[in-house]
């Protein structure tokens, strides 16, 4: 509508300058957002020697995918991938189930002390005891160096509970009432009526939850200090990146590049890029599906309890 209105007015030279600047700005910023991913990618599929000499800047040369195949020999990477995939699937599934169930129950006005419990859940979004008490708590519960540490705390996602609650409240109450009259109890109403109707919101929280799980880094860093085989992929990448940066610093500090050092840098640079790419690709793959849920997901900061 606004575009139609605007089109009636002749464009003045100042408008053209303004529009050009706007296009230029967005073009540049978009390029800035995309180019690093592209750069990373072409450097993982190009001729490794050229990559190391820094000759692959804008276009891939000598395309091959051996680097990705070679990753299977990189120490500890496999277990990190398994752990991360497992926590993404299990953690997300449980989070969605708990959020759906809790989000449904808190709409029940009849529940004993309902608003107290609801508030208790909401407060946890704004208040936490701090990193160290949280860590000590996990230690106390025996959840350090333990895969359950990735799953259990993530099951409670107050924000998602609020999202589901708000959504369920928008479902006509008559649907539920008619089922209750037909003799359905709460769990039946939940599985037969509420769940099928809330699929859109559950998909939203599932996809955001999955990305969050995939990106998880801090819990692995804090809790898995004695179990490198249970590092998440992000943590593993962080370890690799730091190894490489130390190596690079060492080489540039010694003055000249020895061949051996250059060889090491070759492999470490390429491995680093390829692992980064492996970590990014799943996100890029689900990204098109996420887009439809953006507007729902963005309410993240704006919805009230």
């Amino acid at each position, binding site marked *: 509508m606004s575009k139609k209105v605007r089109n009636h007015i002749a464009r003045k030279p100042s408008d053209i300058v303004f529009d050009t600047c706007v296009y230029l700005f967005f073009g540049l910023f978009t390029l800035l957002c995309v180019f690093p991913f592209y750069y990373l990618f072409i450097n993982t599929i190009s001729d490794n020697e050229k990559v190391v000499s820094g000759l692959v800047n804008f276009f891939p040369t000598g395309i091959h995918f051996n680097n990705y195949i070679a990753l299977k020999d990189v120490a500890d990477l496999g277990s990190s991938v398994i752990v991360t995939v497992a926590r993404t699937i299990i953690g997300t599934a449980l989070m969605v189930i708990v959020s759906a169930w809790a989000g449904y129950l808190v709409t*029940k006005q009849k529940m004993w002390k309902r608003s107290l419990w609801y508030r*208790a859940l909401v407060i946890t979004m704004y208040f936490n005891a701090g990193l160290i008490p949280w860590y000590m708590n996990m230690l106390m519960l025996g959840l350090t160096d333990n895969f359950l540490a990735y799953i259990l705390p993530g099951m409670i996602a107050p924000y998602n509970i609020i999202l589901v609650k708000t959504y369920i409240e928008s479902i006509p109450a008559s649907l539920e009432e008619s089922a209750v009259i037909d003799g359905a109890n709460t769990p039946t109403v939940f599985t037969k009526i509420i769940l099928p109707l809330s699929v859109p919101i559950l998909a939203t929280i599932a996809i955001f939850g999955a990305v969050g799980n995939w990106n998880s880094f801090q819990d692995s860093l804090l809790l898995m200090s004695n179990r490198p085989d249970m590092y998440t992929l992000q943590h593993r990448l962080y370890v690799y990146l730091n190894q490489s940066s130390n190596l690079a610093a060492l080489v540039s500090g010694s003055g000249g590049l020895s061949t051996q050092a250059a060889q090491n840098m070759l492999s470490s640079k390429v491995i680093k890029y390829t692992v980064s790419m492996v970590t990014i690709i799943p996100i890029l793959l689900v990204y098109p599906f996420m*887009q439809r849920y953006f507007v729902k997901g963005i309410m993240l900061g704006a919805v009230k309890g």
Partner: protein
Amino acid sequence: MQATAVRGNRLTAAHKPNHILRLNRVLILLLGLMVFLPQFNPGRISMKINENASLFTTAISYDTLTNSLGRPLRMEWVLPQHFHMLMAGAAVILAGVVLCAIGGCMSLGNNRMKRVGIVMPTVGSVLMAGGLVVINHVYNIFINLEKADKIEPNFPNGIYIFAVVAALIFITSIIVWLRLPKQVEEKMEMEEKYRLFLMMLPVLLLAFVFCYLPIYGWRFAFFDYKIGDALTADKFVGLKWFTYLFENAATRNDLVRVLRNTLIMSGLGIITSWFPIAFAVLLAEVRSTKFQRIVQTLTTIPNFISWVLVYAIAFAIFSTDGFINSFLRNVMQITGANTDYLANPDGTWIKMLLWGTWKGLGWSAIVYIAGIAGIDQQLYEAAKVDGANRYQCIWHITIPGLVPTYCVMLLMSIAGILSNGMDQYLVFENALNKDVIEVLDLYVYNIGIKQGLIPISTVVGVFKSLIGVTLLFGANGISKAIRGESII
């Protein structure tokens, strides 16, 4: 007289508060909590057993139980079956606790359900006594071992405490049982309000364990504690660490430096918090919807990658071997271009702001893009009729339409001024920029986890939490006063 009293009692039993039953429930709740607290672990019958193991952990995790007992086990001073027996004892106690918990839940039902339910804690407390006997038996084995000194047997207070609680639950259960009316309903039923509550209970327990129980960790602020120590009364130091924070010159300087970094980075974020609005408004001015969609799609991607990946990208672009240097060397023919831009501490604050903007701008703009789409188009048409140009439309219609959302965002970021998260700063931190990049969250991590200074980092965390809550309520108050709407 007496007869009427009895009759009255019988009639109103369901409605009158039953104090013994309440006590019974409170005891069961207490028991449920004690299961997770290592101080009350009746299974810590050797000083070598992990002091952070709770009864729950004792029952489920052989590894945690014995992680400091590698040598005694290898030397066969103590045998795995002793620990298996210990775990079995703990598991029996756990089973008793579970029974008690079920009974506690059932006590919310009608009298018939109460009558059936009260059997559970009665049996449960007997089970717990049995488990305690098993643990005591293992303890007796331990003190009679040949190398008992190597595994340092210890009679934990937890055994007494659990025994007392189990006994009390047993007694109260019996009393409740005796006082419940004999004539009860035909069917077990529970009022819907309690049924719904019990369905909610597992969720509430999870939230309690992971969101509220950490507050119990604040006790470390009052003790002289190192990881691996037991928290005993003689280590209580009162407010020592609170005053230490301000009296010790080194810590005070650290804190000032860290607070400066935190406030500057948050401040820069707040100063630039209008960027997303500008982004959204300008994007709305673009005529081609296709271009709009492409820009929106591509600029949002960085929001969904973690800070570690942002660092990986920074590394690919700005490190010695990264894009910038190889571009300068090979395309611009500048030999010797091998600056490591990431190691350079100059302008760290601005760099961090730019990374934050790169990652978050497209995403933060979405809320405003949605906001612009929601503005009534008639306003624009009316303005055109009145002769407004496009800048006037932006300034007098679009921006005012976005201000309420902006206010909420701004207040939230002011409330979170001390919490900038640690991931971003952790990944970009190095020896050269440590002084300017260390924000409060990262500082807590560095001294607490890396250096193991648990008490002092807890104190910092306590202050941070309290200030954060105060700021949030302050911001909420402001919002209520100005807009008549709360933000939380």
